[in-house]
């Protein structure tokens, strides 16, 4: 059964092979487990990139396959990060506090410990009480479950309201942006209970691993991210390969027709929306411990728009395209914004990439959309001689999210 799935989808095997090689390569070049050719901070960058690839897969499922242009998936990503961040911060602070109180003459009561943790964590927002949303912060299993549950519930409630009223196309995209904006504005408030614009920090320090160097921890997270990406790719390929994939691609191109076949379109959209929100949550939960800090700016509406840009540049409607797009654009972006890219002196003006990179990205997005809608993934088609069908410009279905002529394969 499994074999036939792999056989029918050779790209899965190729992808997993490439990912495994890449992981091995990085492992043997890292400081902790290899020759030390690449720095720990670069290992973290690569690990974070893998998480971005994972959320790109989620985006491709929801947009490329199901036609829902969600501009809100980074909200789910951020929520996943906050959920794991709460435990990381609580537990680490608890250890520090217990250590420092251990020297006190009278052993501290449990309540004193909790109060001390509270004033440590919430001092920056002028408070010391734990808000109710931190109720489970002391439990790793519960916070891990919340990584799935919180994004999943938000997606369920939002999706149920939006899909049930048959909001589609641009209006749905705007609604998802509004959701993201509302969430980030809420998180910015000091009394949101998540430390306002300070966000959660120190997340790179895994509690109880003080003796273990960051170089090794970074490799652990890199492995975990690679594993999550591999499993995510496998899951997504399986979901889109069978009849379920047929139905959601049908919804992308012509949802009315799917309805008249007796499929509840709203149910399917909700299913995909919630599932991808959970994948995004997992990606975020792996990303932020590597980033070390999460704050509300990460959830800003623009982040979700970038996500759509990555998937478009990689080529939507094919999972490896989304991964390539996310990896390529985010790595190039790190390079440009990290100050490594040399400035271009034009005589009268010096192009500083830190400032101009956004412009370049925007321009590439426009160019790809106009001239190469298959994106980077389209290069593989070029290679294999797969062309687009000749349809005189007609899309493959009447809906707004439907596959366009130039995105399709003959």
């Amino acid at each position, binding site marked *: 059964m499994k074999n036939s799935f792999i056989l029918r989808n050779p790209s899965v095997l190729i992808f997993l092979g490439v990912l495994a090689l890449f992981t091995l390569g990085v492992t043997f070049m890292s400081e902790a487990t290899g020759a030390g050719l690449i720095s720990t901070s670069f290992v973290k960058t690569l690990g974070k990139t893998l998480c971005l690839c994972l959320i790109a897969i989620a985006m491709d499922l929801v947009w490329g396959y199901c036609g829902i242009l969600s501009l809100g998936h980074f909200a789910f990503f951020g929520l996943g990060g906050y959920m794991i961040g709460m435990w990381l911060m609580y537990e680490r602070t608890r250890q520090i506090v217990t250590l420092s109180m251990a020297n006190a003459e009278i052993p501290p009561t449990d309540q004193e410990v909790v109060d001390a943790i509270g004033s440590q964590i919430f001092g920056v927002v002028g408070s010391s009480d734990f808000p109710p949303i931190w109720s489970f912060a002391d439990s790793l299993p519960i916070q891990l479950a919340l990584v799935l549950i919180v994004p999943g519930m938000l997606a369920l409630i939002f999706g149920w309201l939006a899909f049930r009223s048959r909001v589609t196309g641009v209006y749905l995209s705007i609604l998802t942006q509004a959701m993201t904006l509302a969430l980030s504005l809420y998180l910015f408030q000091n009394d949101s209970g998540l430390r306002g614009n300070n966000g959660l920090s120190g997340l790179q320090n895994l509690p109880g691993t003080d003796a273990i160097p960051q170089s090794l921890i970074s490799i652990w997270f890199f492995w975990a991210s690679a594993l999550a990406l591999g499993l995510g790719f496998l899951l997504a390929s399986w979901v889109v390969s069978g009849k*379920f994939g047929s*139905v959601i691609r049908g919804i992308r191109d*012509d949802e009315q027709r799917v309805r008249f076949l*007796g*499929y*509840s379109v709203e149910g399917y959209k909700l299913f995909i929306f919630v599932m991808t929100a959970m994948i995004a949550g997992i990606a975020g939960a792996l990303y932020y411990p590597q980033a070390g800090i999460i704050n509300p700016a990460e959830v800003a509406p623009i982040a979700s728009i970038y996500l759509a840009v990555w998937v478009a540049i990689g080529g939507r409607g094919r999972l490896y395209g989304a991964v390539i797009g996310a990896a390529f654009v985010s790595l190039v972006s790190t390079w440009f914004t990290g100050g490594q890219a040399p400035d271009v002196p034009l005589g009268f003006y010096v192009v500083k990439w830190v400032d101009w990179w956004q412009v370049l990205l925007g321009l590439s997005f426009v160019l790809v959309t106009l001239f190469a809608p298959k994106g980077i993934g389209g290069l593989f088609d070029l290679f294999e001689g797969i062309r687009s069908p000749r349809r005189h410009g007609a899309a493959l279905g009447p809906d707004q999210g439907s596959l366009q002529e130039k995105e399709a394969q003959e």
Partner: protein
Amino acid sequence: MSTLLEVSGVSVSFDGFKAINNLSFQIGQAELRAIIGPNGAGKTTFMDIITGKTRPNEGRVLWGEKSQSLLKMSEAAIARAGVGRKFQRPTVFEDQTVHDNLLMAIKNDRSPFSVLFFKPKFRDLGRVEELAAEIGLSDQLHRKSGELSHGQKQWLEIGMLLAQEPRLLLVDEPAAGMTLSEREHTTDILVEAAKTRAVVVVEHDMEFVRRLNCKVTVLHEGSVLAEGSLDHVTQNKDVIDVYLGR
């Protein structure tokens, strides 16, 4: 013969324009019916009402032995209850193969979870082959349906309709874009299908309707102008005035 679908006193207006006006209609469990009428008579809108796409302003639409109202049901639920529909313009999933189109239509559990774990059984694959043979697309099963000719898409849609195993088939202008022999084949399929279920065919082509050899309902300005055999209605003075005489 017991009634499968009963539409009574239904009216629909779009911005004050009455597209359907106090229309009543009945069809039995296994009956073939042709609907004719000039452009804009409301034939497509009539099908929209039955399939839940358009909600009428007044009237009743009752379905099946239990006289269940279709008006409160969603399009998908109506389809699952056994109403299949072919659109005026052929609508198939152009980015997917003929095989996948048919497989999606074949009657099976439609809920997301069971579809996710769906494995086509021997019976399903056999049914796909059988349908493909019936609609003359056996050697096209692995082509993307967007590449098919207009006539072939019409066929595919008819095939998908049969795959759903509906109790009522609503077919909007099935013969458009077909050659003469294809039209004859279409008539055969529809007549055959009507032996076990109700079939409503909207068609402009009188020759086609004649070959169906069934009761005819003439629609005009959203209501029934005449009903009976083709010969009966074509001799009707009103019908000649509004439809045939032009």
